[in-house]
């Protein structure tokens, strides 16, 4: 399968995202001014400071020609992963509910975080955890029967405090749209309900603040846990997992 990784002026994690995606499939960069997604079967909106983060993080990037195509791609059911700044872009584009606000500690923070995988049966997390991923498909995986595993991957941002209205948060939890949470003691940015990653209602657009693309090699990433996110997407696209 083929991943398309967007590159905006000011992106800085697109090369790592490309390398991570290339470990599980083909991967190609897509310049922000392109409308053609080049036949990509899944899209990664990477981290960085698109358009200098002017006005608000992600506010300008959502109007890029490539993003218009990504919005269309998402409407058709295509898989879209937004990481860090990419998560902010997807929220600004209203593909995901909520917004990312300045960290409660007012600091840029870069550290390894432990994440709880709330659901391991989604298109973005089905390769998390041991064994037969996708087995829980269709079940209420947010409930007691859910397989819970954790990931250790880096996070680095100033604007990562997930915010949504209480009603929206209740809906997200009830619908099983919270896929990743900061484990106890790891929520340094003050995200409401410890949310680290949310998926849209349809299950094909996912945003997360921590960086799976930086944790694909034990030599430099502290773990290879991030690879599971990309592997999950490959499985979902290739039909290896029922999601």
């Amino acid at each position, binding site marked *: 399968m083929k991943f398309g990784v967007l590159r905006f002026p000011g992106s800085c994690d697109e090369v790592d995202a490309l390398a991570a995606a290339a470990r599980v499939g083909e991967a190609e960069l897509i310049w922000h001014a392109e409308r053609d997604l080049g036949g990509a079967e899944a899209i990664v909106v990477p981290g960085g400071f698109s358009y200098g983060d002017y*006005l608000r993080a992600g*506010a300008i990037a959502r109007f890029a020609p490539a993003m218009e195509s990504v919005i269309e791609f998402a409407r058709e059911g295509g898989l879209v992963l937004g990481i860090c700044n990419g998560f902010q872009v997807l929220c600004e584009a209203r593909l995901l509910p909520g917004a990312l606000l300045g960290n409660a500690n007012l600091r840029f923070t870069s550290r390894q975080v432990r994440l709880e995988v709330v659901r391991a049966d989604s298109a973005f997390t089905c390769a998390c955890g041991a064994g037969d991923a996708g087995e829980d498909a269709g079940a209420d995986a947010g409930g007691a029967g859910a397989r819970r595993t954790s990931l250790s991957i880096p996070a680095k941002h100033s604007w990562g405090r997930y915010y949504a209205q209480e009603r929206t948060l209740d809906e997200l939890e009830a619908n099983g749209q919270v896929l990743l949470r900061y484990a106890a003691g790891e929520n340094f940015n003050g995200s409401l309900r410890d949310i680290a990653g949310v998926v849209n209602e349809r299950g094909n657009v996912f945003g997360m603040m921590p960086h799976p693309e930086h944790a694909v090699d034990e030599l430099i990433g502290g773990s290879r846990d991030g690879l599971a996110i990309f592997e999950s997407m490959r499985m979902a696209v290739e039909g290896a997992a029922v999601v």
Partner: protein
Amino acid sequence: MRARVLIRPKAGILDPQGEAVQRALPALGFAGVSGVRVGRMVELEVEDPAQLEAMCEKLLANPLVEEYEILAP
């Protein structure tokens, strides 16, 4: 026409910048300060001020977390 748009965090949303400013002021001897909120201002020259509201909704502010006030003379 010259217009100004004031944008600030919505009431009820934690504003750590405002809190930091509020904590700093007493340290400089300014007592009795509360409710500090930090936002931003956009100044712009517009031909059609009727479009300002749509500009705020679409780009200048994020209505989910920010409120805006259009100051047009």
